[in-house]
């Protein structure tokens, strides 16, 4: 997983509430076999409009997305996080997220920043003309105009993002415990191994 510490750049001022997973990545993109390239389907319906923000000269490839309440609601599809990541977005800033989306985002190296609506309104303003800076270590979002917003994040998620740790590597640290469990299982419940 890519590490994430400081992200500075243009922020796409989307601002919409209840952006659901169908908006982020329409269902027909589920029929893929790769996580890569999903950025092409990201926000497909919004991007059907030739004047959309995502493909504008100003915001194309921007690493930050600003949205409204309840971002990522709808289905559990992890494709939503893949699509956003593949678009080049590393940080989403919104007042709230669906639980599943924020979990999937962190697993895929994307930081979901939670800020109150007033801060979102201000950042939407700044994003029209200027870059935004997100510092995970100090948990702050700053602008060239001395705005400074701090955000909360679960310490474990923070560590995972900062160190680029994925969950599998973490579980692999428990390898000895898993092996011991498997041994005991074979001894206690040998019937659990499916007949050949």
């Amino acid at each position, binding site marked *: 997983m890519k590490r994430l510490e400081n992200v500075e750049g243009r922020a796409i001022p989307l601002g919409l509430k209840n952006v659901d997973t169908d908006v982020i990545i329409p*269902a027909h993109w*589920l*029929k*893929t*076999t*790769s*996580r890569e390239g999903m950025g092409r389907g990201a926000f497909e319906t919004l991007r059907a409009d030739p004047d959309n923000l995502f493909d504008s000269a100003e915001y194309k490839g921007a690493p930050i997305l600003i949205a409204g309440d309840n971002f990522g609601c709808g289905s*559990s*599809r*992890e494709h939503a996080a*893949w699509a956003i990541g593949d678009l080049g977005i590393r940080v989403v800033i919104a007042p709230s997220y669906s*639980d*599943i989306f*924020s*979990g*999937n985002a962190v*697993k*895929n190296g994307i930081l979901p920043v939670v800020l109150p609506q007033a801060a979102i309104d201000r950042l939407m303003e700044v994003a029209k003309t200027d870059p935004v800076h997100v510092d995970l270590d100090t948990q702050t979002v700053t602008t060239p105009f001395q705005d400074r917003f701090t955000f909360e994040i*679960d*310490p*474990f*998620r923070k*560590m*995972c993002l900062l160190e680029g740790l994925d*969950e*599998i590597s*973490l*579980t*692999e*640290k*428990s390898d000895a*415990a*898993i092996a*011991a*469990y*498997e041994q*005991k*299982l074979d001894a*206690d*419940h*040998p*019937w*659990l*191994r*499916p*007949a050949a």
Partner: protein
Amino acid sequence: MANEGSEGTTENCVFLCHSLALLCGRRKWSGMTRPRTLYEKIWDAHVVEQRPDGTALIFIDRHLVHEVTSPQAFAGLRASGRTVRRPDLTLAVPDHNVQTTARLDAAGNKLPIADPESAAQLAALEKNAPEYGIRYIDAVAPEQGIVHVVGPEQGFSLPGTTIVCGDSHTACHGGIGALAFGIGTSEVEHVLATQTLLLQPAKTMEVRVEGDVGPGVSAKDIILHITGVIGAAGGTGHVIEYTGSAIRALSVEGRLTVSNMAIEGGARAGLIAPDETTFAYIRGRPYAPKGADWDAAVAWWKSLATDPGATYDKVVIIDAADIAPSVTWGTSPEDVVPITGLVPDPESFTDPSKQAAAAKSLAYMGLEPGMRMQDVPVENIFIGSCTNSRIEDLRAAAAVIKGRRKAANVRWAIVVPGSGLVKAQAEAEGLDRIFTDAGLEWREPGCSACLAMNPDKVPAGERCASTSNRNFVGRQGPGSRTHLVSPAMAAAAAVTGKLTDVRELLA
């Protein structure tokens, strides 16, 4: 069993798989002698490592893999140079995308799948499974079928085990007393690599259905009724154990139907305690324990039943006599009424958000408040899905269809058996002829119109009486209108061309 390493080193404690929102329900064990529920016993038996924050690394006994949610997981393994830790505990079978029309030509060659993306997903599974040493049932194998039908049928799913699959209806296997739940693609990769998941214990909920159901009332009606009572979020954060005499009286197939839809009530998993009915069902199946192993297994399974005096976080009691043949009117599985009922008035709901949702649902469904459900015409019939495609489901539908004809206004009516073995059994019993003589189509096994990833779709604006589990907007194809029903009710709708009280046809 193993409950070791509890005080571990873990700086890595707080990580919850949020898609595994087996949330809340932190309980403090006061030793193992406390009376425990079935769920708690299975959980305790699978703890590899207890973390101080209440989460635990849980061993996964069975991993079912299908073609839609696995390609990216295998790609992840490949990219990180990892292997599959326990291919022997993993079983792969394609089901979501497969065509339900012929898969072989007259010469026995595989017929191609028209949609290139579906074909690519199938090809990926066909390549990945053998590459990682995973048991693979090919799309043209006699045992192929919907993963949740195949698991129990093969004796691969067993009571007291933990079972995962990248599909939310994995809850189905709870019908035989397995703790089974759906996972996302990252978790699929995690299980492939480590055979474990880091989970937080769920709260427990008992749904007790007491008494006898009336004639024409099936397991599907029981679970639709339950979903209507508890609501689509009623089980959120809980694992539901279904108990009571009406549940005990169900066959294993009926229990699979009930547990299948635990997720429609918001629960991650459902459970029904394994009993003699369960053991009789499992015995002799290909992957089931044999000989002395069998006796040891049964002894352990018997010990899993909820202890007298154990308590649940939530209890809902339902009188079986209140359950009628049921049908959904809206776009949430909680939108359930008896077939004798009326389309509700959105104003009749007290919750304003439900009022708005109901109004939206009715507009989408093209229904008016106060309409009799029995007057709603249907143009499509789908008998299939992991909820209702086992042999008893097909028998129940055939019993209604026998000697009757599909109504003229029914444009499309398909019967999709849950597996090749179900199909063969049905054909041996002559059920296929009953369906085809009545004008219904008899198809090859797969998910089919349950989610319409393959060509089996309900056209926009048309209705379908469907034995599947989700009536979401667009679930059976863009603009499709789904009414969830039992197999007998779907059969009744096929012959009358409208939603029908099957009891009238059985009389």
